[in-house]
């Protein structure tokens, strides 16, 4: 458990105020749309109203003639000849010969005001030839489905597959048929999940400036500005070193801001408008129609279990669509699906399928929630069938360090057993349930991720430190990195300033994704601090005239390491820093690597619900999140990740969904009908932070952001079944769906 200051650490595990708190409670913090610049223009984007259509003609003449319009662009203004992912990005930024989904950009305009830009956009005339479209993944995978794109399949797809299958995979181990043969109960069911959106409250926004010379700047809300730089310059055929990208504060991302959508438009418009900066701010409808939601899934799962709850074999065949481009996370869905179980034999089959929907982006543990919905629902169904306690069955089959993972390799240090035991001990499991109330549980998994990381640290003249990181602070990572840096240096938390810096200031960084900021930037910051400590020890050694190896760093000061090193009073960081100019110059540290030693995180959730049998409405009565953090650097923000992830999962389970009409157009393009949970929908979210330290991180961090979205989908389905005896195998479990299931049972 997180001990809140009772750990062996001075600062790690405490809950200080976050360094950017003051800016964020006073309105001073500057987000994507909060910037402006002299001569700035405003952009508006023309988007396809059709799910699939050939673009016959675009007439921009009326828009160009409007007073105040400075640039109009279409695909004709982009370079030709791109291939692979660069082409995918360009095609998604601006449609070529065909619009591939409702909301696909087809033209953009920059003008002297937002209203002029919008007026001009309405004057752009686009002639479409509407083509047949396909939305649902089970329709899209049919051999005779409308073909989204010829030749989009990669080398993994065998000959003879349906035309919209663009990636195919099989993996597993053991003799699955023998495993099913050894089981007392074999069940196979089909589950479906609908696409949901990350739903960050800040719409995408940027201001880009690009001169005729190919040099430019961008201000943008993003999880990763090096990704933005590479993707924008790929799409526009520019030199990445000539584009400097500065991240704004970011108003939520959850994976959705790890790629580009309209950012290249600002640069292309700016270039055409003589280098004037161009601001692009999406409306909420544009966010829902044209940025990346997650994939939708159709999943067959088969499990064999003995009478006493031993899993003997599993098989999963998942079909997922991630929009009109490859990239649905069917691989991760399969890899996470059975991850919580020792699988003597398991087989996974996956299809990545194209459909006429916006291109899916990452969304918090991409794929894992779908896989868990299918597998954790079926495990629960089988426990009920066999009269077994679902928690005991999960303990019985739980994976431990050294076990072969369902997806292949052996697990390193993991804390699933500890998580399940902490769950079992929690008082929520003793709460009494009334009529129409039920309890459900499920586990979830995420690998966590490292990635390119570059951090620099500088000691100031007064012995304080500044740390430059390249991972935008999306939920308190400045605080966690400052805590670890201060702990390492032996100085006060308040004496470390963590800055999220622009692309010109550091080597390449991957985005804040994969739950990596506190793991990877944190680890790199610690290593940079250790480098600076080494230099400070050398300076002390030089002053004392002893071997640097004979100096150690204790409590923020250099001191002789043991009595043989000599007798000198400790030299504090402030004393060393005050003299640094005359002892060899600035003291700094830096670290660049793909930090190894990522630690995976398991979590288990338990939810109590009440179902209104007359309306089908599900109310969350109680909610418990138990998850392995490795080590909670700032426990309050770890709890926040658990709570936020759980509530996103609750939304996905109950009411969120992409709803399409027969015409293939998205029907719920505003928050009124894209129903994310509101404050009155929820109880407090109870949390237990389990700490099984990750040996691959200096303070034991695993990364906590993603696992939490995974268990709610099946846990709620299991609880609804417990409450009213109906099994929902399709999301969302909205009141009409639950009521229909209740009526069907009668």
């Amino acid at each position, binding site marked *: 458990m997180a001990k809140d200051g009772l750990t062996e650490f001075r600062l790690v595990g405490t809950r200080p105020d976050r360094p950017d708190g003051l800016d964020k409670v006073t309105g001073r913090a500057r987000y994507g749309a909060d910037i402006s610049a002299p001569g700035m223009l405003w952009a508006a984007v023309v988007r396809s109203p059709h799910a699939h259509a050939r673009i016959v003609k675009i007439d921009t003449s009326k828009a160009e003639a409007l007073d105040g319009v400075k640039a109009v662009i279409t695909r004709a203004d982009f370079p030709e000849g791109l291939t692979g992912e660069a082409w995918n990005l360009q095609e998604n930024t601006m449609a070529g010969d065909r619009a591939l989904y409702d909301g696909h950009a087809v033209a953009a305009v920059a003008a002297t005001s937002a209203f002029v830009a*919008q007026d001009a956009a*309405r004057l752009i005339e686009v002639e479409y030839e509407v083509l047949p479209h396909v939305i649902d993944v089970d329709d899209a995978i049919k051999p005779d489905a409308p073909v989204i794109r010829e030749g989009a399949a990669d080398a993994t797809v065998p000959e003879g597959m349906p035309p919209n299958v663009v990636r195919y995979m099989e993996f597993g181990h053991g003799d699955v048929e023998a495993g099913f043969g050894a089981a007392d109960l074999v069940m196979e069911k089909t589950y479906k999940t609908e696409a949901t959106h990350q739903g960050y409250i800040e719409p995408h926004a940027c201001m880009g400036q690009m001169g005729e010379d190919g040099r430019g700047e961008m201000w943008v809300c993003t999880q990763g500005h090096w990704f933005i730089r590479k993707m924008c310059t790929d799409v526009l055929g520019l030199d990445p070193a000539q584009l400097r990208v500065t991240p704004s504060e970011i108003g939520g991302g959850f994976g959705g801001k790890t790629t580009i959508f309209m950012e290249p438009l600002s640069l292309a418009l700016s270039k055409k408008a003589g280098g004037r900066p161009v601001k692009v701010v999406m*409306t909420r*409808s544009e966010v829902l129609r044209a940025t990346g939601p997650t994939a939708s899934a159709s999943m067959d799962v088969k499990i064999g279990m003995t009478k006493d709850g031993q899993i003997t074999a599993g098989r999963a065949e998942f079909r997922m669509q991630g929009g009109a481009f490859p990239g649905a996370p069917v691989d991760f869905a399969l890899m996470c699906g059975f991850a919580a179980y020792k699988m003597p034999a398991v087989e996974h089959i996956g299809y990545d399928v194209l459909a006429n929907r916006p291109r899916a982006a990452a969304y918090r543990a991409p794929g894992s929630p779908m896989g868990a919905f299918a597998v954790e629902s079926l495990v629960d169904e089988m426990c009920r069938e066999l009269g077994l306690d679902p928690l005991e069955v999960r303990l019985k089959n739980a994976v431990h360090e050294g076990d072969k993972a369902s997806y292949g390799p052996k697990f390193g240090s993991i804390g699933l057993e500890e998580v399940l035991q902490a769950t079992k001990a929690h008082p929520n499991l003793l709460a009494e349930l009334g009529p129409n109330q039920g309890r459900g549980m499920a586990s979830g998994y995420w690998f966590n991720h490292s990635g390119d990381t570059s951090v620099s640290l500088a000691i100031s003249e007064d012995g304080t430190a500044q740390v430059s990181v390249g991972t935008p602070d999306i939920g308190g990572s400045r605080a966690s990195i400052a805590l670890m840096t201060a702990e390492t240096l032996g100085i006060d938390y308040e004496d470390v300033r963590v800055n999220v810096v622009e692309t010109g200031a550091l080597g390449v960084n991957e985005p804040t994704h994969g739950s990596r900021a506190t793991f990877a930037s944190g680890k790199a910051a610690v290593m940079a601090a250790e480098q600076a400590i080494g230099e400070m020890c050398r300076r002390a050694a030089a002053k004392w005239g002893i071997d640097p190896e004979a100096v150690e760093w204790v409590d923020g000061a250099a001191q002789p390491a043991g009595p043989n090193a000599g007798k000198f009073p400790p030299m504090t960081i402030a004393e060393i820093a005050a003299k640094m100019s005359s002892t060899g110059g600035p003291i700094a540290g830096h670290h660049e690597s793909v930090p190894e030693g990522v630690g995976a995180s398991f979590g288990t959730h338990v939810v109590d619900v009440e179902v209104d049998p*007359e*309306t*089908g*409405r599900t109310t969350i009565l109680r909610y418990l999140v138990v998850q392995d953090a490795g080590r909670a650097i700032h426990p309050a923000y770890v709890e926040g990740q658990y709570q936020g992830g759980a509530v996103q999962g609750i939304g996905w389970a*109950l*009411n969120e969904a992409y*709803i399409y009409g027969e015409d293939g157009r998205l*029907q*719920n393009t*505003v*928050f*009124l*009908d894209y*129903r994310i*949970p*509101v404050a*009155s*929908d929820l109880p407090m979210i109870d949390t237990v932070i389990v700490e099984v330290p990750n040996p691959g991180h200096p303070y034991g961090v695993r990364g906590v952001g993603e696992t939490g979205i995974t268990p709610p989908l099946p846990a709620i389905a299991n609880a609804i079944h417990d409450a009213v005896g109906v099994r929902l195998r399709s999301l969302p479990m*909205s*009141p*009409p769906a639950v*009521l*229909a299931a209740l*009526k069907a049972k009668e």
Partner: protein
Amino acid sequence: MHYHSPSTFEDAARLAASTTGVTRFLAGGTDVLVQMRAGMVLPDDLIDLKGIPGVADIQQTEDGGWRIGVAVPGIQLGAHAALVADWPGVVEGMELVGSTQVQGRATLTGNLCNGSPAADSVPGLVAAGATVEITGQDGTRTASVEDIPAGPGKTTLAQGELISAILLPPRGQNGGDAYLRFIPRTEMDIAVVGCAVSLTLDGDTVTAARVALGAVAPTVVLVPEAAEAIIGTTLDDAALEALAKAASAACNPIDDKRGTVAFRTDVAGVLAGRAAKIAYTRAKGA
């Protein structure tokens, strides 16, 4: 777009009659601004009614009824204790429209004129037997609230006509009303089904009732069969069952992003029973 802020309803009516393009009236603005923002409606003329004296007033009329100005926001209705005591169902319908923030702006008149079949405040007004005062170029007339909506997004008002007040009848003795709606979340949604019941008791027996349903037909509908199911009863189980059946039978809904035909039809009956019980309790307590 031209923004106008007339100081009388007559001026507003004249302005509206004289315009040739798209005209919208601005009461609370919570629908008009959203439509403008989405580009669904791009008015040439926007006539703001909030500058007209008296539009933000709630007045008791001589007969004991109520006259509610067109710019009275939900928050003001909810804060008016005497009005809440008389017509709690009307007020709770309005208070369900949008968030606390929206309550600071949204009005009964705007909710009615937006023409949504799912408007939360309209079933309560219909069940209450409310009327509206309409000002045109040639003077004023009154009409029943249920006669205003003509279909989704449409009203029966002619060009150059506008509502100048909402009129609630006197509540009288032993009366009660209630409005319930079903939404997927607990707040912030548009009604999937709404139902208002207003009734009067003599002792334990219902002597008069009006039942109105929202979101189950192209307009909010008054359902006399549902009222008849409970008139003359003590709202016993048989009466409640008959009420639910009649309410469900009156539904002519659609499948859409908010609900299905089957769901709306079922839940209309459920809500009618639940709302009737609340109205009954209120009438007993009155």
